[in-house]
């Protein structure tokens, strides 16, 4: 697979109000991975949790993608993502148990793994993944948040949700308990699709219609697009950390080989595996 099947631009910013940035982002276009985490916990433990999440999952996926590409691994990419998330959850949980100042720390998570013309989407908490396809922006994740529960249960109306004080209360996070169940799904990925991975500091402050407008207008220049998205969040108050990743599919990216070692041995011998 060539190096440039996907283009990624990413930026994280403390926002206009906060002193610290508890968000963490890591991307690797070479293996088609973008990871975002929005940490929580006192004494800046949120920063520790979000950085642990992005680093551990990225290093796990680097190994796993190499295995998938060489066809050593036979399990699906979704399983690779799940394993890496489980490992990160365990590490954050253990660190929180072992260090009083880290007690209760956790993090949201949103990630994409592009492999074999498909994308694996994983998320926990209120960080989001959107997709822009043919100029239409669509939210692909469902927040684990109290506000969403309130709306679904009819406690408050959608029209009133903008006034809620519950915007940042998440109902599920990485590293809080011994085990975690992440939302995982797989989707077809087509050339020109643009995936947006963001923390709530973006979508809480910028309406979806404006997010769509900015990405559509600036899709030829992804670094400029991420900067304008962050700028819009800050101009609208910017009271939270804001992180934005845009990943654009440049061309089809079929896996080099779906074959196992046995059929490759046949190929090498010049025989047909049938």
């Amino acid at each position: 697979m060539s190096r440039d099947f996907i283009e990624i631009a990413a930026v994280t910013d403390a926002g206009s109000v906060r002193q610290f940035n508890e968000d963490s982002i890591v991307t690797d276009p070479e293996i088609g991975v973008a990871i975002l985490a929005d940490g929580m916990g006192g004494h800046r433990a949120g920063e520790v949790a979000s950085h642990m999440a992005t680093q551990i999952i990225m290093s796990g996926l680097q190994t796993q993608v190499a295995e998938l590409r060489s066809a050593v691994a036979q399990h699906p990419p979704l399983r690779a993502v799940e394993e890496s998330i489980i490992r990160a959850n365990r590490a954050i949980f253990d660190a929180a148990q072992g260090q009083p100042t880290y007690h209760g720390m956790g993090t949201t998570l949103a990630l994409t793994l592009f492999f074999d013309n498909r994308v694996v989407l994983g998320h926990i908490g209120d960080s989001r993944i959107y997709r822009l396809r043919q100029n239409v922006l669509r939210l692909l994740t469902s927040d684990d948040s109290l506000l969403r529960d309130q709306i679904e249960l009819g406690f408050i109306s959608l029209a009133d949700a903008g006034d809620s004080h519950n915007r940042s209360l998440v109902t599920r996070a990485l590293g809080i308990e011994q085990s975690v169940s992440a939302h995982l799904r797989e989707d077809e990925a087509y050339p020109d699709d643009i995936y947006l991975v963001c923390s709530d500091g973006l979508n809480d402050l910028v309406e979806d219609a404006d997010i769509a407008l900015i990405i559509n207008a600036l899709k030829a220049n992804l670094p400029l697009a991420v900067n304008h998205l962050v700028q819009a969040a800050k101009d609208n108050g910017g009271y939270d950390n804001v992180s934005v990743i845009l990943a654009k599919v440049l061309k089809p990216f079929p896996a080099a080989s779906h074959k196992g070692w046995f059929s490759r041995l046949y190929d090498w011998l010049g025989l047909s595996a049938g």
Partner: protein
Amino acid sequence: MAKLVLSSGGSILYQCFVDKERLSVGRASHNHVVIDDPAVSEQHAVIISVGNDHILQNLQSVNATLLNGSRVVRQILQHGDVMQFGAFYLRYLNPKIADSDLDRTVLISGLQKRGDAAQHPSGPPGHQVRMPAARLANIRFPKGRVRVITGSRAGHTITLDRVVATFGKPGKGLAVVARRPQGYFITHVEGRRHPRVNRQSIGAETHPLRNGDVIDVADESLEFLLDS
């Protein structure tokens, strides 16, 4: 913790904290906040706590519940809101929300979804509920527009009332004008030709726009106008 202050005729009669999941207001003596006024129903309204929110819910239709002077059925309370029951005023105070850090991400346990939540099919996630962005407080954006001087749209005026607007042609020369609280700014997006402002190329830098500036991008010439 949020607080309620009951007053009538300018004097404070009663105060209490909103420390219950469901706090009742009415004329009957079993209510948490008892209001002895014939215009108030026995069970008139409740204040429901959900996370950091307190939601005012009117219980019946005979006697209205007024919030800041308007009739409401159900409404999220904001710091300083005044509810009116007959001749009595109930003020909602939540200073913690007024000036704190509630926007920090915090984990809490989710709401128990009962059987009736089944009527919200889970389907593909994210499609049934569109969560709106937070209400914006006190942010004023300038009002600007561009008048097309030359080009296929000559004579047209385009209002710059969105967060961004692009001008020019993709591939050839495309520029973006961003609307920000401090004014409008133009930046080159793509193409070999960079936009010019008052005959000067802006290069790769973001350039602030002033009233009367002339912008050349691709084949169009535009005049930027800022309403004062």
